[in-house]
């Protein structure tokens, strides 16, 4: 990728890629509301944002992928189109002054040319908190994951937006699963799952699939945290944020900006 260089297109617009944190204070903000909050912050910050043409012009802001309600994230990606030349760092800093509690830009850079951001998304990495609520005191997470990888297919049911039920195989949509921590009945899983327009697995789907493998084990999804979004280069997941060169130190993970009294 050659996204280090500034790309100003013919009509004097340039696209800036931002990486965004959604902290616990904002985890109940829906995707639509998050977009609205960002637009309002852009207007407050008085940034030279570009508008779409047409009867009902709207700001050129696009998200890579919608995050589920209730989830936190340190890896959301947003593209904004500005008119004229504007340093990503200046844009990030100005925007951060106008963003509500719980939402922070953590990195910025020029957007690479080529495929649209939303179309580039292939994989998403999550950290999931899952609780075992059954009676088996010897419940073995490691063998559960083993069972998952050994299965030929993991057929689960999902209700789509129109309310219709579909059955699909979850197995090819999960790339990586790792136990990173365990405390009592709660396990912390790191999962790399398919995302985007060419197949998408939700954290709920994974929990359903694991419950199935564990012979109807009682599993509850306790927390969802999205770490990073990935594209795909020759079959290998490649981080979509790797070209972001300007980092907001204050918004790095573990340096949570949203502490409240």
């Amino acid at each position, binding site marked *: 990728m050659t996204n280090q260089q500034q790309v100003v297109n013919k009509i004097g617009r340039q696209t800036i890629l931002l990486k965004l944190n959604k902290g616990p204070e904002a985890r109940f903000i829906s995707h639509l509301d998050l977009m609205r909050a960002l637009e*309002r912050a*852009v207007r407050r910050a008085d940034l030279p944002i570009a508008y779409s043409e047409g009867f009902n012009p709207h700001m050129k802001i696009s998200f890579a992928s919608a995050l589920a309600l209730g989830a936190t994230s340190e890896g959301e990606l947003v593209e904004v189109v500005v008119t004229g030349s504007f340093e990503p760092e200046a844009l990030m800093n100005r925007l951060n002054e106008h963003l509500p509690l719980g939402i922070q830009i953590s990195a910025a850079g020029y957007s690479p040319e080529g495929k649209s951001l939303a179309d580039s998304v292939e994989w998403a990495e999550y950290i999931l908190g899952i609780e075992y609520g059954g009676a088996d005191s010897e419940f073995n997470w490691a063998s559960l994951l083993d069972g998952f990888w050994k299965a030929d297919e993991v057929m689960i049911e999902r209700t789509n937006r129109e309310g219709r039920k579909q059955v699909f195989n979850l197995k090819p949509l999960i790339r990586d699963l790792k136990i990173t921590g365990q405390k009592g009945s709660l396990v912390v899983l790191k999962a790399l799952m398919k995302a985007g327009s060419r197949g998408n697995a939700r954290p709920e789907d994974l929990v359903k699939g694991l419950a199935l493998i564990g012979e109807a084990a009682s599993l509850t999804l306790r927390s969802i945290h999205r770490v990073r979004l990935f594209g795909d280069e020759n079959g290998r997941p490649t981080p979509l944020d790797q070209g972001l060169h300007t980092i907001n130190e204050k918004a790095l993970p573990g340096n949570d900006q949203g502490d409240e009294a």
Partner: protein
Amino acid sequence: MNPDISKVLDEILPLVSKPARYLGNEWNTVRKDHDKVQVRFALAFPDVYEIGMSNLGLAIMYHEINSRDDALAERVYAPWVDMESEMRQRGVPLFSLETRTPIKRFDILGFGIPYEVSYTNILNMLDLAGIPLRQSLRKGSDPFIIAGGGTALNAEPLTDFIDFFVLGDGEEVIHEIIDCFKDWDNQGRPGGRVGFLERAVSITGVYVPSFYDVEYDVEGWITSIAPNRSGVPARVSRRIVADLDRLTPPTSPIVPWTGIVFDRMMVEVFRGCSRGCRFCHAGFTSRPVRERSPEKVKELARELVRRTGHQEVSLVSLATNDYSQVRDVLCELAGELEDQGVNVSLPSLRVDAYSIGLANEVNKVRKSGLTLAPEAGTQRLRDVINKGVTDEDYERALTAAFAAGWDSLKLYFMIGLPTERDEDLHGIAEMAKRAVDIYHRVTGRNPRGHIVTVSTACFIPKPHTPFQWEGQVPLEELERRQRLLRLLLRHRNIQYRWNDTKGSFIEAALSRGDRRLGDVLHSAWQKGCKFDAWSDQLKYDAWLAAFKDVGLDPGWYANRRVDYNRVLPWDHIDTGIRKEFLIDEHMVAMRAGLRDDCRWDRCHICGVCIDRPGVRTRIKPHGSVKMPKPGARDEK
């Protein structure tokens, strides 16, 4: 942030609908240290977040109180039923959004009352907060429960539950109340709760209902309303802010995360209305007209966009087309804010070509639906209500609208207006059909689908208006009229929507009620009544049972006609309008007589400007009353 409540909320919020309602961390939220101020105010709205956040009055109060160093204000709205049930299950008390502090710990809890059918929500919120419902049972540590807003002028059914009402404009009186509270607090709270009320009652606009005794005759009519102690005025005057330019309105109102009912920034261009539509409670209870100067309006609009980032600014008032500088201000702002992707809008339009022209200027590109409110179907009935809209106005307005590109129209009417006959309902149908014809004639296109939507609401004769002596048309008759309209409006291009008669019957009984209805409210609440404004939540049978329990007849309250010489339950509330004027207006109405606006006609001596130093109609920038009639302004 209260850690205990926060912890439980983490568990509850994933389970409820629209959790963003309960977060309290929106942009421009004010958080202060509770230990560093003397007066802690909770501002409550007895309906859901999306409606409460659209209320300009509460936003103003939030700003006024938080502008002081010695006080803080935090918000609380009625939790929706799913949230309430989770809270009750886990023992979470009603809490403020900003710091999640239990409401019981505030000094004063102030409700903005939007409509009568929110009364049960007030009781429910007090209960959720763990505060005794009846004011007589409250102890020293309980907050004072106060209430304001337009409905507070006739909220007698609430008198058992409210320590005091605040009548009229709140910007000045709120500071006097806080100062009064501080003095009482500094002196060691002499006299306890009553001690504070006895001090507060001397503030103009403060109405302490427990300081009045009401007597009734055997038939249930009121014979007297009188103070029961010294130092209490026989009639309580409403507060009136004389000059809007001397106020500092909020420029950094809270920006909600989620969509709300009025998702726009509001700039109040004037307060009051002297058009004199005889059904209009707001029109008779917020006089005189006081305009904000065009400079202030523009300054405010710019500042609001800068500090909120909102995409729409609305110039609000009871009838913005009547603002003397409306065209200049609208065009200047629309032109200036267009580059920032900000729209300027008018909240409502009068039925005339001038208003359509205005709307057209700010709405050049996208024209969706246009909404107009002729209110009644015949000239005679429109004259009875003094609406002052002629058939010619209607014709011209629609011609202008369809020519300008609007392709659908919503028409609002009321049914059950005084003197209404079936021919007036036929008139509604004719107006709707005429709209379809005008569309066809102007656009040359055959109308497809529902291009006209007719909505009717059931008229409620409101206190403090010339129709206060009228009764609501009985329920069965209202339903017959709705059925008739459904027949008359059967047309492939017309859609008819009507409101729930039962809800408006209950609203009429509460609106026209006296303080004996406190027991009915309490009983209805105990039977599970809440969110009565939501037709899917209204428990009509429970309401009827509650009236029965107490031995009162809702029909008597809603439908009774009252003689001029009777004492009305709200007679001790002085809105500034003379009763003789209202009687006169009622008599003129009965012979379908019109009364023009005092802004361009002579003074009709309604009384609001008399004996009130500084209070008068203010038209900016000319400064005095007379101005050309809006139609005439169009000509120049």
